[in-house]
């Protein structure tokens, strides 16, 4: 098994896993009931899928052509760092602008804290 076949095998496995994960997050975007569960699906599995795809690309270029791409590594690092932060900020903005939770919710602790804070300010 020479280097180019091995690189193709590693790259195709990683890229298939990554695209399957992002398709899974797409199903989550369709089927889940409210914004918070949807963002739970969208941020985590889409981020992991993109990380797998970028890692597969990195290994392909490294093993097949001997090209060690620092830009791809930086892209992996940056996506890994910023995608959860973006998900957190959008969920926080949604809660502050009073987007409804789903009907199956059993407990909402943040609501009491926010109401107490507003009462204290008024």
């Amino acid at each position: 098994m020479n280097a180019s076949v091995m690189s193709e095998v590693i790259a195709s496995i990683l890229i298939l896993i990554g695209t399957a994960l992002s398709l899974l997050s797409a199903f989550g975007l369709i089927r889940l009931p409210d914004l918070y569960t949807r963002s739970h699906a969208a941020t985590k599995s889409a981020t992991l899928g993109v990380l797998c795809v970028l890692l597969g690309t990195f290994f392909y270029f490294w093993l097949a052509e001997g090209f060690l791409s620092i830009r791809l590594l930086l892209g992996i690092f940056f996506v890994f760092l910023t995608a959860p932060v973006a998900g957190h900020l959008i969920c926080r903005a949604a809660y502050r602008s009073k987007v409804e939770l789903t009907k199956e919710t059993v407990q909402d602790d943040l609501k009491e804290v926010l109401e107490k804070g507003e009462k204290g300010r008024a």
Partner: protein
Amino acid sequence: MFQTIMFISLVLLSLSIVVGLYRAIKGPSTPDRVMALDTIGINMIAGVAILSIVMNTYAFLEVILLIGILAFIGTIAFSKFIERGVVIERKRDE
């Protein structure tokens, strides 16, 4: 064989982009749409990576980093706009 696998994964990726587009059109609230657009941007990063393997070129690797940064900044700006009503706040002593 390898090219076929790459095309299959491109098709799966574009399917998930289409689903994100459906959520961005239908989504009941504004944060839903912003989140769907963020997911579309993240999937586009993976699409560019697979395309650079298919076309066997190094020239697109900057685009990956650039789309990541732009999607992050856009999402931050939109969530700040939804939460506070402005994107860049003024100074107080004016």
